[in-house]
Each structure stands twice: as C-alpha cells, then as structure tokens.
C-alpha cells in the first residue's frame, strides 16, 4: 500500500481525499471522446488500483507456481499468498474460520454451487424456494433450474413502487415447506438494501436456510456473516476493486460439510481409487482443479485498499454522491428515478421520458461519462415497472462531486432535446 493512502483517509470534515485515491487508479487519467473519463459503471465492475495491478505482475514475474502440495519454494510462496487472501476475506465478512470461504469465479458461480450441491441434497419435490422480485438473473435462473429438476416451487416476494419488499409479503410466503431463501442484500438495478436481518431470523424460525447475494453490498457496506447469521453469502472480487474471475462463497461449516461436492477433479479429493473416491475437507472439497491463483492473490490488495479507507468512509462518500445526483435529477422534469428505497447503496437508475436508455447511454459516452443501460440482468424487475430498461449510474469511492455535476448537466442537455 503506497504511503500516501494514509493521507486519503485523513478526514477534513469527514471528506475523503479523493485526489489521493484517484492517483491509485491509472485508468481514471484517461480521456474518452475528448473528455476526462467519468466512470459511473461501478456496479458492473470497478476500476483497479495499482496495488492490484502490481500484485498480478509480481505473481507472474516472481513466484508463479501451482499451489498446495508443492514442496518447492515458489509453490510455498504462491500457496501462502493464496491462503492470505482467504484469511483477508474471512476478516472482511467476519466468518468464524477461513475454511468457510470458498473461492469461485464470481457471484453467479457461488449461487450455482449452492443450488447444485445444497439444492441437490436437501431440496426436493414440493419444497419451496423464496426469492424477491428484484433479483439478478443469476439469483433466479439457478433456482428455476433446480425447481424444475426437483419439482420444487419458486415463490417471489413482490416489490412496491419504491423498489422495496415488505416483511409481511415475505412472511405470507414463508412456511414449513420453505427450504431456501435466496435474496440480494443490495439490488444491482435499484440500489435497494433489503432488511435481511429480519428475513433471516424469520426464515430460520421456519426451518429454511438463507443465501445472500452480496455482490452489490460488499463493496459499499459492512457485512458481518455472524451478526447477520446468513447461511451462505456470495460476492465478486471485481465489483470491489479486485480482479475479474474471482468470487467468494461463504457457507457455514456444518452446512458445507454435509453438502456433496460441486465438481470433481484434482484438489477436491482425499483419496482416489477406481472403486471409490473420498473427498477433501472444506474448502478444498469445493475447489476442484487449479484455481485462478493470480487473481485470487491480487484480490488481497483490493481488500486492503477498502480496509485502509474504511467501509464507513466509503459509504459516507458514496452516499453524498448519490444524494447529489438524486437531488440534481429531481430538478429535471422529464427524468424519472427508478428505485427510491429509503435504504440504498450508491446506485441511481433513471429514465428520460420519450428516450430509450440506449440513446441516453450513447449521449453520455459522447462526453466521456460511462454508465450502463438496459435491463441490468433483471428482466422480471423491469417488467414490474413496465419499462424496457434504465440508465444506471453507480458510484465508487474514487468518484467526485465534480463528476456527478457533469452527469447532471449532461442529462439536462439530453432531456432538453426531448422537450422540443
């Protein structure tokens, strides 16, 4: 971690030193279409600090080796670095032990893993799975596939106009038949933060286990798996300043131990004969084959980056940007905000009357502003709001008030065209 990162957190009126933070992200110096890049597509993937980029290069230049079981020095160094990331993830989510952290290739794989293993063993004919109306396709489709295979039933908690679910709607769907509740901690399309603590308690009382999709929450807010008492939690490194191709799956030891393996191969076995194979202990039971060593190792400096600044400081900064953008957009008549929940992470979805999100996204790119447009892999949610898609601006710790101001002014110009 470069020395000046300490400066970044030194608060003057609780303001982050964003210029010191921005210096850590080489891509932010780029120009796009003649304008400085204003990157607001962070909910899709964040940019990477130098410490992450350097860790990748360093691994390949200095100690590239396959991990575990190697007796030579490089293998030992690579294994140590790999397992240090697991330990850092454990601390980040406050899991009881590092063995409860499984590396995957992303949130989607984590959810698929649980559906394919826990689902295979413990969900059957007539059992019920509850999700919400705001889930990403990756927290819908694996459960649909499982339900179809097993004859289980998928139940959906509806959401209100602001993009929130209610506990009553949840409780009315919860029963002794509920075996799994799979829900996002924060919505990727709306930003809504769900009241998961209450849901988890109710689900446990009914005998169900709970999986949290934390892909959009973990980069922005404190997540403590012990305090929440969730059974599973999945997230992605690349949405929190880390490399692509790495995900984490937390699972309670007693559940992971009784689940069948996910994929067969090397690493996940204890002993193999042609007659029979015994499986390795957790987490290795779920990590068949050579993992994504370089990217897992380079995920650690991303976690260090977050810890150095502090989740609380990150959340405060992002929330201020969200407030600024929300207030700015509310001044523009033809802008409709989609998702106005009381509790939100820094995601702002919107539309302009009479314009397709695709056109708005192209127009913003013309002045160097990067946003996402479309259905955000939440087609049922878009249907709920009777829209084809939205424009989504999502803020990260390196975004500035000046950039948000540019966004507001560009949207004003685009909206003015429609009035003609």
């Amino acid at each position: 971690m470069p020395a000046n990162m300490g400066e970044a957190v030194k608060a003057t009126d609780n303001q982050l030193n964003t210029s010191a933070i921005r210096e850590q992200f080489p891509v932010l110096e780029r120009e796009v279409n003649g304008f400085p890049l204003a990157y607001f597509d962070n909910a899709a993937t964040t940019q990477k600090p130098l410490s992450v980029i350097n860790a990748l290069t360093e691994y390949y230049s200095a100690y590239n080796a396959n991990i575990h079981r190697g007796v030579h020095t490089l293998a030992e160094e690579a294994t140590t670095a790999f397992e240090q990331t697991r330990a850092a993830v454990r601390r980040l989510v406050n899991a009881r032990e590092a063995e409860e952290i499984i590396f995957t290739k992303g949130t989607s794989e984590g959810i698929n893993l649980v559906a394919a293993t826990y689902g295979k063993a413990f969900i059957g004919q007539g059992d019920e799975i509850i999700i919400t109306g705001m889930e990403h396709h990756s927290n819908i489709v694996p459960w649909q596939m499982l339900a179809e295979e097993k004859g289980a039933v998928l139940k959906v908690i509806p959401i209100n106009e602001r993009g929130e679910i209610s506990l009553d709607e949840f409780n009315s769907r919860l029963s002794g038949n509920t075996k799994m509740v799979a829900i996002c901690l924060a919505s990727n399309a709306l930003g809504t933060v769900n009241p998961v603590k209450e849901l988890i308690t109710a689900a446990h009382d009914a005998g169900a286990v709970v999986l949290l999709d934390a892909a959009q929450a973990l980069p922005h807010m404190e997540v403590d798996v012990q305090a929440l008492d969730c059974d599973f939690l999945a997230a992605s490194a690349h949405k929190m300043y880390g490399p692509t191709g790495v995900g984490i799956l937390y699972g309670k030891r007693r559940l992971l131990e009784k689940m069948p393996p996910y994929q067969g191969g090397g690493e996940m076995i204890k002993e193999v004969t042609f007659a029979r194979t015994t499986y390795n202990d957790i987490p290795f039971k779920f990590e068949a084959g050579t993992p994504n060593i370089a990217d897992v190792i380079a995920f650690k400096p991303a976690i260090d980056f977050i810890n150095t600044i502090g989740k609380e400081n990150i959340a405060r900064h992002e929330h201020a940007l969200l407030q600024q953008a929300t207030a700015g957009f509310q001044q523009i008549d033809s802008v409709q905000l989609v998702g106005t929940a009381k509790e939100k992470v820094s995601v702002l979805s919107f539309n302009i009357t009479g314009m397709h999100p695709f056109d708005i996204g192209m127009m913003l790119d013309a002045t160097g502003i990067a946003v996402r447009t479309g259905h955000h892999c939440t087609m049922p949610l878009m249907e709920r709001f009777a829209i084809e898609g939205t424009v989504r601006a999502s803020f990260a710790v390196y975004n500035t008030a000046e950039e948000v101001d540019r966004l507001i002014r560009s949207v004003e110009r685009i909206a003015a065209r429609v009035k003609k």
Partner: protein
Amino acid sequence: MSSIRQIQDEIISEFALLADDREATLFYLMELGDKMPPLAGEYKTEDNLIKGCQSKVWLHADYKEGKVFFAADSNTDITRGLISLLVRILSGQTPDAIIDADLDFIEKIGMGQIIGSQRSNGFASMIKQMKMYALGYKTKVAMK
C-alpha cells in the same frame, strides 16, 4: 439516382462539420431519425425484426424494376438516425450495387463503434440483412 459512392460522400461531407463533436453528431443523427417517415405498422412484424439486446430494427424490402427499396424503423433514436442514412444510400439501388457496397461512411462519421457492439444493437446486423435481401432478389431473378 446517385451512386452509392456519391451518396456516401455527400453524407461524409455533411457530417464533417461535426466530426470532432460527438455529442453534436449524435444530436444530428437523432434529428435525421426524427425526419425519416415512420415504417407502416403492417411491416413492424416479428419477421421483419432484427434483434439486438437493446436497440431493435425493423426492416422491410421490396423489389421493383431491377431495384431494391428499403423501409426501416428502430426503437431507439440514434439507431433510427443511422438507419435513415442506410436507407438513403441503399434504397433504389440494384442488387449488385448493394451486395458490393463498401459502407465506409459509418467509420468516417465517427460511428464505427456501433458496428462493434453487435450484441446490443440491431443496426450492425441490419447491413448484413440488407445485403441478404439484395442477394435473394438477385438469385430469384437469375432463376427466372
């Protein structure tokens, strides 16, 4: 009828004034799209739809006296503007001219990027579909 080359050159010089201002280029494209006569509802069918994840294009073709005539529409304004240019260039040309057309105007007006994003927009597939129609009409005539 001007040749495909001539019409493309006209368009390139019209856009040359805006070349460095991408926002102005997009505003102008949207204006051109607004001016294009809308495609009759009967042609906005599933069969005529070229699907992209975000921008969709409806394309209708007709063959009269050795020439191909196109009419099209899109659900997004920028794509509709680009389509209006394609219709201006290719509609009323012979099948051979359409098949051989080298549509370099897209790059030259700074919109090359839209061709690359095939998954998200129907425009990229539209050019291919226009050429397929031309080839289809040519083959039909040859078989008579």
